């Protein structure tokens, strides 16, 4: 994949991020639930990283014939095939992105409500 195609996929994914987040709502809720329940036996950093991974599972996109991003889980439920390496790569990139975004949101919230 050339740089231009990569940038286009990035632009598409950013534009469609709100929709991906909507698709990922059940997983985001699960991540929040996990974070709450696991505070008894896991440290904050570990909980944060694992909760981000759960959310990323529901958001990590694959792309259809129109290059339109849909979460991998939704495509699998729809009976589509997604390659293993692609799923792994998409999940890892999304995990990093979700972790970074959640971290930033956490910092902003902490600043507003010290």
């Amino acid at each position, binding site marked *: 994949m050339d740089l*231009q*195609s990569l*940038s*286009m996929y990035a*632009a*598409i994914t950013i*534009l*469609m991020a709100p*929709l991906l987040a909507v698709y990922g709502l059940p997983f985001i809720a699960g991540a929040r639930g996990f974070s709450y329940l696991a505070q008894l036996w896991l440290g904050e950093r570990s909980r944060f990283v694992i909760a981000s991974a759960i959310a990323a599972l529901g958001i990590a996109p694959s*792309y*259809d*014939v*129109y*290059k*339109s*991003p849909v979460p991998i889980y939704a495509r699998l439920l729809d009976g589509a095939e997604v390659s293993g390496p692609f799923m792994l790569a998409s999940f890892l990139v999304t995990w990093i992105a979700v972790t970074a975004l959640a971290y930033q949101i956490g910092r902003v919230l902490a600043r507003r409500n010290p």
Partner: protein
Amino acid sequence: MINRPSKLLFCLLLLGVQAFSLSAKAGTLAGSVSSGGKPLAGTMVTVFDTAGKRRDTVYTDPNGHYSITVDFIGKLQVRARTPYFKDVTQNIDLSSDAQKSFDFVQERHSVAAELSESLPASAHLSTLPWASQDSRAAFVSQCNYCHQVGNALTRTPRDEAGWAATVHRMEGYFAVLTNRQAQDITKALYQGFDGKEVAAVEKYLFNTDLVHARIKEWVVGDGLTFVHDADVGFDEHLYGADEGHDVIWELDRKTGRIDEWKEPDIDLPVGGVFSGMQLPIGVFSGKHGPHSIAQSADGRLWITNALSSSLASFDPATKKFKLYELGHSHLYPHTIRIDKQGIIWFTIVASNEVARFDPKTEQFEIIRLPDGGFWRAVSHYLFPTVLKIASWFPQQNMPLAVTHTKWAFQGHDAFPFPYGIDVNPIDGSIWYAKLYANKIGRIDPVTREVTEFDTPLKGPRRLRFDPQGNLWIPAFDDSGLMKFDTRSHRFETFKLPLLAHNEYEVPYALNVNPKTGDVWITSNMSDRIFRFIPGTKTFVTYPLPTRVTWLRDMVFTKDNAVCSSSSNLPAYGIEGGLASFICLYPDGEPGTKTATPIQSAGAAQSILASINASNSKH
């Protein structure tokens, strides 16, 4: 059998009349068409010139007689074409002032595959198996948008992946579909166009009005030419806006001369503001995409440039263009009309606007039309931005990746698409049709107040006023014609005459003859033109000689012809492979008109009735 002495007398009479009225280089052919000893009425006899650039056609009368005078000579081809019969073509050598007699004997198709090949697209379409009415409706609206489906080019069998790729490519050309509709259409095309012959039974109703009619075609451009609209100038030349090549074609119908005028270059990539879409869009290899054309009182032609979001003027006297840029957020300037004050009005389809341009001040005024719902508002506010971002990634079709027409399952409902426009001759108000929203609307020319009305039939496309202020509207999606009384706000609807009950038409445009009040309507799926006579509420149908005839705006000339551009997209899908200007002279062409005797309308009807009855048996 046709009576031989009477035939000879008929031919001599015709030739005598012709000789009186011909120009020096004209030649005349006359004769008869029959099958099995019976005359064929309504046969299209077409004469092709040596270079294949001209085609003139007349219809045979109830006795199978025809006469045609052409202003081109040399080695010509003559073809007799009758539905359900095999074409007969002959080469002839016609010298100046020559008068020849030529009879045709046609044979009825007896091989199913050959008959199937001869049927129009509408017959082949009737075989498509639809999974749902929604998908069929989306197909009618979106897949016949600018070309026939079911003609020889588009019904070639493919595997399912091949059809999926085709549908995907068409979506890049603005066919707006949901994923479900795209899948259903792919499947229907794959299953329906399987290469097996179609056993359609179509009814071609002969009308004695055809006997006087003459059709002239002038081939223009190349296989990628797309003469979207044609207009007739004060000089009686036809001007055609070639959206494929950024060119205005000028045809002098008297001499047959065709000139090409190229629009000036502009600082945009190929595809204009749509450069991020799949390119070329259809066959559009330019930057402007000249689309619609109208002439103002000062003689200038005004042209909407769909791809470059601009308006152009063209002076036929100096052959000079001038460009007026609208701004790239105003997407796809479309149909153009000019009011009595010389103000230019045009629709802007993809941004739900009507533009008003005053040539004196050279200022635009943009009138934003009612959105008509949340998702349509989303379209209008976001689409320009999406196209801007998409232009960073040329030809990648990025808008399809992010469009809510798919992820919000809106399909073409996400756009209202203000399309046709016209000026009410009674009060100067501006009326437009919203193609996808199934509405018509009125703009008050003074207050700019907008009022909209729902149409009873779907797909209101290019509407026109009659001199009494009635609005006539073709219903593209519903094979219909609508009349709207702008005073009482009442609609009247009429079904177009189909060739068979399971076929459909996609009437793109119409126009009202200011002298007769007749409404001329394009058919576009069956290679015909309709004439609707409001007084009797009846249709006259004119079969057209060239297969894959897809007509746009219709205009009237001073010599009583109704003219249009034959602009199926792509032109190489048209029989002969090229676009053309086409004029139908319902009462014959002045100067070459011949009085063809018609024994009686009843006789003609009985002959055609026997042909149709015979068709039913087949």
